């Protein structure tokens, strides 16, 4: 065994270390002057000295910038330098080290055969005066996450022996169980009482006890995560009974709208719409909340990995072309004394999630073009991580495939390990203080290169028609993927054929493992040879693990022993429907004290620098938004490439002008007042952004994504019902069908008897088709002398607004939506853009007109003069602050050239709009109040600084 330590030459700056010095400063430890990070490689090998030397020199260390030294064992800190502290951090046993494969491959290329295993670690050399306690704080808050890592203290067992597994069939004595024993089984597999009841009846009829693999299969298949049982429940809500909320709202509206361009809705891993008659687009947004709470980097990375596999598993496989990510965190300046024990600080969660998403998405070569980040203290223990991906696939391959009996079950991509076991039941359960300690097996570090290889080879296999059906291995692992694929046929799977990361896995572990980067294919026997050869040529693994049958049974074997035998009908239709109760009552919030009108310039600066509104450039820059060469409208726009774009536009087919627009609408603050109007606002916001960049409503599809508190509490379920009803009502009028969705329920945290629930959060993602991307419009002001119009009606709707939040209140007048009026205005505005009459357009959202005009001005490096006097109002409003910061929906600011004034006004005729100002060359934002007095006069430089500062890390 060898330990190689690689470090930068001492005269070179250590960028990783400098980042840590800043992070340590944020912990208010100011005595650290320098940190150097060293890479440690443990090699389980027997090497000749020249081989070891070559390996270090040619592979592990860079000859220009780095040096190295080799040892055979761990040496604790060198005690000769009292101002230097060493912390060495290694992965815990069982965590797959993503670097291992690359090293083994490169070592083989070097002609060295005897490297059996490799592990990496990091050593941090921290210079400064530190107490033992401070060192401990640095290590626990910045360097180590105990879920996956530990500090190496003494001797190291870098390569522990894998335990061997000896087959023994395990049966659960269900038929003999009663009382406490029965409850114990229910708890162990997360079954409800009713569910366990029908399972008992099923096995009684078969006159035998279930095996562990059978109960695991049922537990996974019937979990909230896989089957959305809350949404499908029978819900009594006041005087009405809702039989299946999903089918009576979001799915119903799609059915009623019946758009011919909807190619596949709510049946596959993503929804699919027609793009241009030849190509189709699929879109899916997933949540990966619980894993990201305990291990932000790995949790978020595997979130991206998972949603990309959904896209690869749609139709007969699509190419991922865009990522969009939305995060909800607690404020990054949350005092440590408000942090519950066992919970990571929001700043660390934020940084980890960002890094995980960027590292994984960038490596896959998928542009991240769009997203949002929101902050609320109630996300402290339950951060939300939404990862979305758009895919492109040939239209004729856009429907889910269907295999025949005799087709082979092929598992491809990564190997199977003990990763993520019980991740599904973990995802569906409430987090507790202990979660972080017990859930380590549910989190893993993804390997994006394994997934990238899989994308490349699957598209080739698809184009050669080597498989008839595909699905991803996500939550529930093989049990969900194969179980679902074979629902209409039947299947036999030989679990001992699955290729494993290490020995020692039992048959149920293989069956439910959630190891990343795996897909399942149905392959006709005559294609299998060509398929396996193709995979081998691209360095990706594929293994035949079974065959589809016409027996309508799920049969699992391990070394020729039958270990599970379930009827497909029972597995997929046997689950009893949940019966739930829902109530809802409008809460009353305190209104802010509005006795005095505040200084509006100061207020505007304050709102611009709130975490919700401020620039997210620090995050966006670290995503590759140019890869694939498809972008037309980027996330950062304007004179200095740093203004906040509304929606992203890309041209996925490189030689075609046709575009795809993607946007997101989300505003959990409104949900505190009324989830119905939160949902309506989110839909309106997503659509507004599509219109703002030059799109139209003709072909726009929506995704819903509900992250909720515990829906077993009737008032939370009532909130869910109201939000879902709004989805139906709005989408029907806008004629924008839902094509797919997702939910993550039970996002609450128990702390010393007190329950903290997240704000109910609905993310609406929209995808639109744009026939001519040369009509795209960005939000930055373009030319001095141009006119500024407002489109839409402003009302006294500041409930849940950023302005009220800055005053410490929620309020009650939540922004509403009149979808009929909004649609009319949106259609007119689209027409104006199509005719080239719109120079710039920005949708009004958080912070209302004040924030929008400031953003347009500083993004264009131009000034603006705006008057609040002529604003179209829906009700009398006699206060400048309310008009300036109202968050009424369905509004836009539009820049129009003076020459186009008449044409623009003709197109917008009969909608609510007004000319309210002008673009100026002065680089000042001037706003005049209803009384004609100047109420804001601030330089755009100052506004921009306020907006950029909070998150310029």
């Amino acid at each position, binding site marked *: 065994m060898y330990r190689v330590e690689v470090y930068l030459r001492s005269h070179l*700056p250590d*960028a*990783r270390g*400098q*980042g840590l010095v800043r992070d340590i400063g944020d912990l208010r430890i100011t005595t650290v002057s320098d940190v150097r990070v060293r*890479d440690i490689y443990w090699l389980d090998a027997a090497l000749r000295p020249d081989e070891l030397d070559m390996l270090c*020199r*040619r*592979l*592990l260390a*860079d*000859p*220009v*910038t780095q040096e190295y030294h080799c040892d055979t064992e761990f040496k604790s800190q060198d005690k000769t330098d009292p101002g230097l502290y060493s912390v060495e951090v290694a992965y815990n046993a069982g965590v797959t080290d*993503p*670097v291992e494969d*690359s*090293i083994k*491959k*490169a070592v083989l*290329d070097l*002609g060295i055969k005897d490297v059996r295993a490799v592990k990496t670690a990091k050593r941090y050399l921290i210079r400064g005066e530190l107490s033992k306690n401070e060192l401990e704080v640095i290590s626990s808050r910045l360097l180590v996450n105990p879920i996956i890592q530990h500090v190496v203290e003494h001797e190291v067992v870098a390569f522990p022996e894998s335990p061997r597994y000896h087959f023994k069939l395990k049966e659960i004595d269900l038929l003999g169980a009663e009382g406490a024993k029965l409850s114990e089984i229910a708890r162990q597999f997360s079954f409800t009482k009713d569910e366990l009841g029908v399972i008992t009846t099923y096995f009684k009829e078969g006159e035998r006890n279930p095996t562990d693999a059978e109960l695991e299969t049922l537990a996974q298949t019937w979990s909230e995560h896989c089957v959305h049982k809350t949404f499908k429940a029978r819900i009594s809500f006041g005087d009405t009974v809702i039989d299946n909320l999903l089918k009576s709202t979001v799915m119903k509206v799609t059915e009623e709208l019946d758009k011919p361009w909807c190619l596949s809705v709510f049946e596959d891993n993503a929804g699919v719409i027609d793009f241009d008659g030849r190509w189709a687009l699929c879109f899916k947004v997933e949540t990966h909340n619980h894993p990201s709470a305990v291990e932000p980097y790995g949790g978020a990375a595997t979130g991206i990995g998972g949603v990309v596999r959904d896209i690869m598993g749609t139709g007969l496989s699509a190419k991922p072309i865009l990522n969009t990510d939305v995060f909800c965190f607690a404020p990054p300046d949350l005092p440590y004394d408000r942090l519950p024990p066992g919970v990571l600080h929001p700043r660390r969660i934020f940084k980890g999630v960002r890094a995980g998403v*960027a*590292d994984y998405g*960038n*490596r*896959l*070569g998928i542009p991240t073009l769009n997203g949002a980040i929101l902050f609320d203290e109630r996300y402290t223990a339950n951060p939300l991580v939404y990862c979305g991906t758009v895919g492109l696939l040939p239209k004729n391959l856009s429907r889910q495939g269907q295999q025949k009996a005799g087709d082979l079950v092929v598992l491809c991509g990564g190997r199977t390990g003990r990763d993520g076991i019980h991740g599904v039941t973990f995802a569906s359960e409430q987090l507790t203080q202990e979660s972080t300690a017990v859930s380590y097996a549910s989190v893993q570090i993804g*390997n*994006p*290169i394994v997934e*990238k290889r899989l994308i*490349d080879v699957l598209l080739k296999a698809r184009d050669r028609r080597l498989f008839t059906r595909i699905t991803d291995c996500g939550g529930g692992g093989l049990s969900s993927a194969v179980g679902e694929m074979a629902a209409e046929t039947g299947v036999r799977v030989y679990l001992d054929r699955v290729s494993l990361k290490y020995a020692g896995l039992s048959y149920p572990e293989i069956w439910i493992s959630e190891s990343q980067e795996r897909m399942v294919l149905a392959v006709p026997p005559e294609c299998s040879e060509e398929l396996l050869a193709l995979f081998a*040529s*691209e*360095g990706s693994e594929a293994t035949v693990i079974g065959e589809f049958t016409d027996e309508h049974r799920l049969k699992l074997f391990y070394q020729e022993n039958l270990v599970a035998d379930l009827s497909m009908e029972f597995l997929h239709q046997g689950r009893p429907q949940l019966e739930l109760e829902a109530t809802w009552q409008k809460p009353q919030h305190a209104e802010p004290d509005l006795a005095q009108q505040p200084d509006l310039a100061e207020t505007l600066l304050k709102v611009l620098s709130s975490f919700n509104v401020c620039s997210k450039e620090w995050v966006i*820059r*670290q995503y*590759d938004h*140019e*890869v*694939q*060469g*498809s972008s*037309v409208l*980027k996330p950062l*726009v*304007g*004179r200095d*490439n740093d203004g906040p774009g509304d929606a992203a536009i890309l*041209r996925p087919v*490189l*030689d075609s002008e046709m575009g795809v627009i993607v946007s997101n609408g989300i505003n959990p603050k409104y949900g505190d007042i009324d989830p119905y109007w939160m949902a309506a606002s989110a839909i309106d916001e997503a659509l507004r952004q599509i219109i703002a960049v030059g799109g139209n409503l003709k072909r726009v599809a929506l995704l819903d994504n509900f992250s909720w508190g515990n829906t077993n509490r009737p008032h939370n379920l009532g909130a869910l019902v109201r939000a879902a009803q709004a989805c139906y009502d709005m989408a029907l009028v806008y004629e924008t069908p839902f094509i797919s969705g997702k939910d993550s329920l039970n996002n609450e945290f128990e702390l010393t008897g007190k329950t903290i629930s997240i704000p109910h959060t609905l993310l609406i993602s929209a995808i639109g088709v744009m026939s001519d*991307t*040369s009509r*795209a419009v*960005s939000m*930055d002001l*373009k030319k001095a002398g141009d006119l500024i119009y407002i489109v839409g009606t402003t009302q006294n709707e500041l409930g849940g607004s950023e302005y009220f939040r800055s005053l410490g209140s929620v309020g009650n007048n939540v922004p509403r939506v009149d979808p009929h009026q909004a649609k009319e205005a949106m259609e007119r505005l689209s027409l104006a853009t199509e005719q080239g009459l719109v120079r710039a357009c920005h949708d009004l959202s958080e912070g209302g007109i004040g924030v929008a005009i400031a953003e347009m001005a500083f993004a*264009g490096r131009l000034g603006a003069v705006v008057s609040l006097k002529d604003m179209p109002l829906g009700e009398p409003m006699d206060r400048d602050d309310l008009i300036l910061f109202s968050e009424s929906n369905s509004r836009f600011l539009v820049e129009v050239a003076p020459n186009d004034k008449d044409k623009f006004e003709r197109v917008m005729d009969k909608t609510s709009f007004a000319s309210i100002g002008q673009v100026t060359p002065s680089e000042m934002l001037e706003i005049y109040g209803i009384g004609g007095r100047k109420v804001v006069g601030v330089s755009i430089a100052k506004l921009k600084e306020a907006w950029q500062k909070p998150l310029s890390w």
Partner: protein
Amino acid sequence: MSKVRTLILRAPGTNCDEETAFAFEQAGAVVSLVHISQLIDRTKQLKDYQIMVIPGGFTYGDDMGAGKVLANEIRLKLGRDIERFTENGGLILGICNGFQVLVKTGILPGLLPTSKLPLTLTTNDSGRFECRWVYLVANRESRCVFTRGIERMYLPVAHGEGKVVADPKVLPGLDVVLYYTDEQGNTKAGYPYNPNGSVANIAGISDATGRIFALMPHPERFTRGSQHPRWQSEGTKERGDGFRIFTNAVKWAKSL
């Protein structure tokens, strides 16, 4: 006259292959996307092409340093083929990860034993992967055939390890092709104009023949006008600044 044949090398983690292929096709070349395993097992041969491109990506995850594992593989498995390819007048272009690979094989700045590499690419001074647009000025003295007639370019970079670090002794002999500058062409502008802290603002270099060229910015991401970040305000040009690199390469190869 027959068309110029361009080989775009794929390896696990390559991710800019398709848009690079598109750029070459637009420039008039016939393009093949070839996996490195096909070159190693000889189902495809370098000698059948005039241009070889190592496109952007994160080959083998950039583990142990960007481009390192692929560089190792190329040096050991294809070293001789590449030598012959360049001796016969073939062109090699490395973009982003391709630059990192060419430097770490020693193919750039020249064919030296790897143990004596004079130059490397390392972590950006910011410590971060960054995606942003940069202004570039081309060195008129350079022998590089890819940048003939190009004076300035505006292109995106997207990398975490783009900082050129060189032994000071080799700098004077280096054929620097592209420098990072500010909007006015000033090379002393600093971060973020020089996005990674590269010594002497180096953005791209060439070998002594001018036929092996590599750069950190992505010319294939600016071949059509509407890829420019400000086309709505500044107007749309027919072709992006990067396109000329591809037409230059194809033109040169055609004359071989």
